[in-house]
C-alpha cells in the first residue's frame, strides 16, 4: 500500500494545532474551553458562539474506523504524487466518539480494512510533511 503526497494548506492558522500534535506523536482534537464539549472539525465560527476560541486537547490514540475506502485512482488535483492504492480511514478516538479524523491506514499489509476495526495513531512522513496515519491495534 502507498501513501498520498500532497501539500498541507493551512489557510486557517488555527489548524496548525492538529499538525503540532502529530509532530509530537499525539492526536489532538478541538474543544470549547467553556463547556468542555468537543467541536470537530474546528469551524471558522463555533455555532451560536462566534467569539469562542477553541483549544486543542490531546486525546487517546486508540480507537476504531467509522469507515474506510481504498483509493485506486487518486482524484487529488494538480501535480501531486500518490502511490496508489492507499486506504483512507475515518478514525474515531475512543475518547471522542463521533469526532472523525481522516488518515491513511499504515502497517496493514495483509489486513482487510473494515468498519469498526481497532486502530491506533501512527503519524507518517509524506514527503516533507507529516500526515495522520493509523495502524491496526
Amino acid at each position, binding site marked *: 500500500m502507498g501513501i498520498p503526497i500532497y501539500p498541507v494548506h493551512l489557510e486557517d492558522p488555527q489548524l496548525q494545532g492538529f499538525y503540532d500534535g502529530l509532530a509530537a506523536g499525539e492526536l489532538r482534537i478541538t474543544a470549547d474551553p467553556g463547556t468542555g464539549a468537543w467541536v470537530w472539525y474546528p469551524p471558522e465560527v463555533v455555532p451560536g458562539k462566534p467569539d469562542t476560541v477553541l483549544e486543542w486537547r490531546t486525546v487517546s490514540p486508540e480507537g476504531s474506523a467509522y469507515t474506510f475506502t481504498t483509493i485506486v485512482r487518486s482524484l*487529488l488535483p494538480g501535480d501531486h504524487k500518490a502511490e496508489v492504492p492507499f486506504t483512507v480511514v475515518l478514525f474515531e478516538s475512543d475518547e471522542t466518539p463521533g469526532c472523525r479524523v481522516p488518515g491513511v491506514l499504515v502497517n496493514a499489509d495483509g489486513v482487510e480494512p473494515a468498519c469498526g476495526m481497532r486502530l491506533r495513531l501512527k503519524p507518517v512522513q509524506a514527503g516533507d510533511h507529516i500526515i495522520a496515519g493509523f495502524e491496526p491495534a
Partner: protein
Amino acid sequence: MHGNTVAITGVGETPFLRKGTKTLIHMMADACLAAIADAGLTPADIDGYIGNRMVPGSDDMGYAIGMKDRAFSAVTDVAGGTAPAGQALILAQLAIEAGLCRHVLVPYGIQSTKPGGVYGFHAKEPLKAALEMPVGFFGQPTYFASMANRYAHDHGMSEEELASVAITYREWAVLNPNAQRREPMGLEEYRLSPMISTPLRVADCCLTTDGACAYVVSAVDRAADMPHPVVQVSGVGIGTNNFPHGVLFTQNPCTYEYPGVASAAKAYAMAGIGPEDLDLAQVYDGFSISALIQTEMLGLCGRGEGARFYHEGHARPGGRMPVNTSGGHLSGGYVPGINLLIEGVRQLRGGEGARQVPDARICAVSGLGGNSHSTTILTRS
C-alpha cells in the same frame, strides 16, 4: 402551499455529450429556447426566471434568449439536484400564485469538462485542504465510497447487489435513444469498469456531461390550453441538515443519512399520496450507493432493503417500480437533477417509445445536493 396549482408546461434539453464544443451559456440558451417552444410560447411570453448560484444568471440568460420582461427573477440557494428538481418549483409556484408572473423559466447546465474539473470547488474548502486532501480523502467518488462501505457494514450489501443499481439504469438507457451510454452492461461488463475508490467503479459514478436542460412552469388553468397533457406539480418537499460542506462527508453522525426522509414526507403530505401510489420514480443518482439509499428514503422499499430491491429487479423495465427510466445520471446524462425531472414529465405525457412506462400517472423525483434534498411529486391530470 397546496399541490396541483402549477404545471410543467415546457421541457427542453441539449444533447448530452462527453465533451461538447459550446459554452455553458450557449448550451443553456439552446435548452431554454427548446423548452419555451415546447410550451408553445415565445421568449417574450416568459416573465419569470429562476437560476442557481452555480450557473449564469438572468442578466446574461435573459439577454441570450430574448426575454422582454423579467417581472420575477430569483436564485435557488441550495446545491446540485435539490435546486432544479425541487427548490425552483417552490419559488415558481409562489411567484405564480402571487400574480408576479405567468410563465417561469428554470434552466440548469453543466460543463463537466471546464478547466479545474468537477471537484475544483472541494479544493477551495479550507478544512478539506488542511485535514482531508493531505491524506488523499478527496473527490465525490471517494466520499460516497466511504459511505457505501459504512452502509454495507450497517445493512449488508454484496458486490452483485451494488452492481445491480448501475446495471438497472443501463438497461433503461439502452431503451433511450438520447442516453449518453447505451451499450448493454451486465455483471461481467460492470466488473471490467475501472475501480476508483472501493467499492465504487466508474460505472457507479454519474457521467461526465456537457449539456443543459430547461423547463417552463405555468399556472394549471393556463396549462390546459397549452400543447401537451398537463403534468401538475402535486407536491414538493425540501430537507436539509446542518452540516456545511467542509464537514458534511465526515462528521454527519451517519454520513449516508441524507435529508431525504424529511423531503419525501413533506412532498407526500402536500400531494396527499404515499409511495404506494407511485407508478415510477426518478432518483438522483450521483452515485449508485446514494441512489440506492434515496430509493429507501422515498419509501420504494424499506430502510436497509435497497440493495435487495435493485438486485431482485423491481426497478428494471417491466418491474413493479421503474426507476430512472432515461438511464439516470449514471447512463443517461448528468445535468444535476433537472434531466431526471424532465424525464418524469415526458413519461407522464406518454409516448416515450420502448422505455415508456404503461399508464404512468404519478412520478416521484428526488434531488440531492450537498446537505439538502428534494422530493417532487408530478401527476398527470
